[in-house]
């Protein structure tokens, strides 16, 4: 019996936590590399429609975004519920599209300008009238490569 009693007196050696920072740092670097900071605060609702035949937009630096949708709940008292266009951090009208595209084009270097894509991030409740007007403005601004931003899924997947 005394054999067993002797063992209980010794405590287990503590598990070394010296490698814990390494593991955490590994995770940290992973998230630092993959993270993309949201560039704009959304002023409009943005529930994207669903589609299955989608292509990924490579090279974020070549993509400009146009948001369309009804203003978010907290701004509806001020701006109503009619769908609006958002460029950068503010509401815009159709007349602002041309200057916006020109400005975006100016920021890219010359070789990359033809590769510029405009990503239309529209809420699924928006009517096509506004989208058509927007497309017309884009054509006038010579921004012909567009992408209708969607989520992968069956059309009309979730209401």
């Amino acid at each position, binding site marked *: 019996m005394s054999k067993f009693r002797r063992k209980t007196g010794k405590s287990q050696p503590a598990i070394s936590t010296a490698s814990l920072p390494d593991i955490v740092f590994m995770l940290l670097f992973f998230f630092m590399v993959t993270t993309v900071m949201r560039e704009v605060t959304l002023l409009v609702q943005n529930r994207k429609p669903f589609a299955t035949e989608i292509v990924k937009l490579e090279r974020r630096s070549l993509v400009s975004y146009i948001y369309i949708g009804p203003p978010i709940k907290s701004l509806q008292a001020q701006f109503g519920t009619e769908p609006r266009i958002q460029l950068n951090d503010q509401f815009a009208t159709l007349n602002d599209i041309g200057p916006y595209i020109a400005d975006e084009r100016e920021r890219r270097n010359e070789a990359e300008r033809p590769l510029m894509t405009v990503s239309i991030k529209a809420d*699924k409740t928006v009517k096509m009238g506004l989208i058509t007007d927007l497309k017309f403005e884009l054509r*006038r601004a010579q921004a012909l490569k567009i992408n209708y931003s969607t989520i992968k899924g069956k*059309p009309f997947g979730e209401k």
Partner: protein
Amino acid sequence: MARRAAPEINAGSMADIAFLLLIFFLVTTTMDVDSGISRKLPPYDEREPPEQPPIKERNILRVLVNSQDLLLVDDQYMKLEDLKDYAKRHISNFGKEDNLSESPEKHVISLQNDRGTSYEMYVAVQNELTAAYNELRDEESLKRFGRKFNLLTENQAKEIADYYPMKISEAEPVKLK
């Protein structure tokens, strides 16, 4: 003076600092990859477009979407689920049926919507039409090269894309009943 060994720095709090940063990045990260349906708009020209040779009626697939999000394809009411198969039949008809296209080269899909059509419906229609093209291209690439379209080399992909060119023409929206 007797040299004393510098006391070891306690690294126990390193993990805490790293965790703090980690949590910050975890919270701010947005993992959404941008994806969607890509399209090319026709260039804008203020002048009247030059006279085009008329396109034979049988080569045109007319897709109309009204403000109630209802589909009318070649003057018939159609459900969204049937659009893809009908478009595939139209594109790959090769002159077999009289009211469908003569060849993939000559076909045109004319898409017209109302100003009141919802964006969701529009994207769904675009999606179905794209699906029709993608499936036809996949079938043809499997037949010719034994691989799916997106796995082909650049030249092979061009060959298939030329064989089944994507021809979707969008007219200005009108008031549709």
